[in-house]
């Protein structure tokens, strides 16, 4: 593990007087599923947004496979193998499921300054889209417009879109958000399969899911990393317990 896939060094991001990201450092090894947890407002989404390039940090550095990507724009990080899902579902809602995924594949199939041929009839893009949809169990819903998919299906589609970009690292921002019990279970099962193919950073509130899936867990409180370790150690960590006082049992009860 000499060369981590993702290395974050002393990242700082302020919003006015608030330190949303306070000297955050963390490493994600290749093949690892690394969970980031923390109470509401701990700065998890802010951190993810900096990793994907939607937000620029005020200081610190981000390396992907050894390359400094701190100032690389969002669209180019995608080309380098970084993919994300959004906490609040963010899809092309007036496109079909297949179109959404095919566009993701198209983004990684050279430039798109092709003005003539019908994009919906390009076999290899459609094939990539269909196999990504099959992968998340949405194969039969390919031609349904996104706004007509259920919330659970949209969450799965987010994953399919991310997968179609053939990422090295998948950043998942609360993929379980708003899912029912059965849907959550399906998502956990899906992530369990995916983790064998791709490294994953998982931001999640669902502690069952986190402790079931994670190789390592980083705990954020008020923008700071208070612990970063394997799940068993995190469960025993006093500081983590204190931070989670309100839902302390949520950390300790399960597992």
């Amino acid at each position: 593990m000499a060369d981590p896939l993702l290395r974050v060094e002393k990242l700082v991001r302020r919003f006015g007087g608030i330190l949303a990201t306070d000297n955050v450092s963390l490493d994600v090894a290749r093949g690892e599923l690394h969970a980031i947890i923390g109470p509401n407002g701990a700065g998890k989404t802010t951190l993810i947004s900096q990793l994907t390039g939607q937000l620029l940090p005020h200081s610190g550095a981000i390396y992907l496979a050894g390359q400094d990507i701190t100032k690389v724009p969002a669209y180019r990080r995608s080309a380098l193998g970084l993919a994300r899902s959004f906490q609040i579902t963010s899809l092309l809602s007036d496109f079909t499921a297949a179109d959404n995924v095919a566009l993701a594949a198209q983004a990684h199939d050279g430039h798109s300054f092709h003005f003539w041929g019908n994009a919906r009839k390009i076999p290899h893009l459609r094939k990539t889209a269909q196999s990504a949809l099959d992968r998340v169990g949405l194969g039969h819903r390919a031609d349904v417009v996104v706004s007509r998919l259920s919330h659970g299906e949209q969450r799965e589609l987010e994953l399919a879109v991310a997968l179609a970009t053939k990422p090295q690292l998948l950043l998942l921002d609360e993929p379980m958000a708003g899912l029912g019990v059965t849907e959550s279970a399906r998502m956990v099962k899906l992530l369990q399969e995916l983790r064998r193919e791709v490294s994953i950073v998982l931001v999640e509130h669902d502690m069952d899911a986190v402790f079931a899936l994670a190789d390592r867990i980083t705990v954020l409180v008020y923008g700071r990393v208070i612990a970063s370790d394997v799940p068993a150690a995190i469960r025993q960590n006093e500081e983590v317990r204190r931070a989670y006082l309100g839902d302390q049992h949520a950390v300790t009860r399960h597992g």
Partner: protein
Amino acid sequence: MTASLNARNAIVALVIAGLLLLPLYSSMTGNIFVLTLFTRIVIFALAAASLNLIMGYGGMMSFGHAAYLGIGGYAVGMLAHEGIGSGFVQWPVALAASALFALVIGALSLRTRGVYFIMITLAFAQMAYYVASGLARYGGDDGLTIYKRSDFGGLINLSSRVQFYYLCLACLFGGIYLIWRIVNSRFGMVVQGLRSNEQRMQAIGFPGNRYRLVCFVISGTMCGLAGALLANNTDFVSPASMYWTRSGDLMVMVILGGMGSLFGPVIGAIVYLVLEEFLSQVTEYWALIMGPLLLLIVLFGRGGIVGLLGRLRRG
């Protein structure tokens, strides 16, 4: 759904057939006025269709589209004034000038979104308006009379009403065919994706503004062509053709007909200009009737007339 599509297609087919057969009707009845009116309508339909490409499909609300009408027109007018009458020179210059203007305006205004984009495109168009007003050599405020229409050798005679009408119609249909291809191409998918969700498109790896800018330039160039046609139609070009109310007219045509529908702008242009023509004959205050009418269509006919047609049949 299929029934509504058929109803829409039937109307569109009817409009196409009507436009194609119009000169026949005109010569049979001796009604020259209708041909003159529809030549104008077809030209504005092309301009509106070009605006629809960025507004309806690309989600870019340009409020300065009339600038290209003026630029295309002035390219023809100024060259004619300087004794260069060949259409083979005039028209490429008109297109190139429009494209260049769109490239500069687009590069600057695409840094903004929403209301700011509307305002900045409006500001640039008004700038073009005032520059044209200041061109003393080319008539300034009063505009520039074009004494001879673009000369295409023996290929086509623009002074013949019927030939000119069919040229305009060919440009319109060609433009719409081009838009149809573009919209369904890889490029078109990206542009429409950016309209739908820019953040998502960046996350999957698209540098949005590059695609937007190219779309903006295509649209501007197409409108420049409409400008060249318009100047030939009126034998005259003036700053008024780029005034902001003209940009507003184009926007209204697009919204009226149906944003993001291929033939919407054509239907919008027909309805708008025919109404304007007849209402203005009835009363000087025609805008008082036109205004509420537009309001009703915008309020109750989301998706414009084309959208309305679809829903009528479904209900």
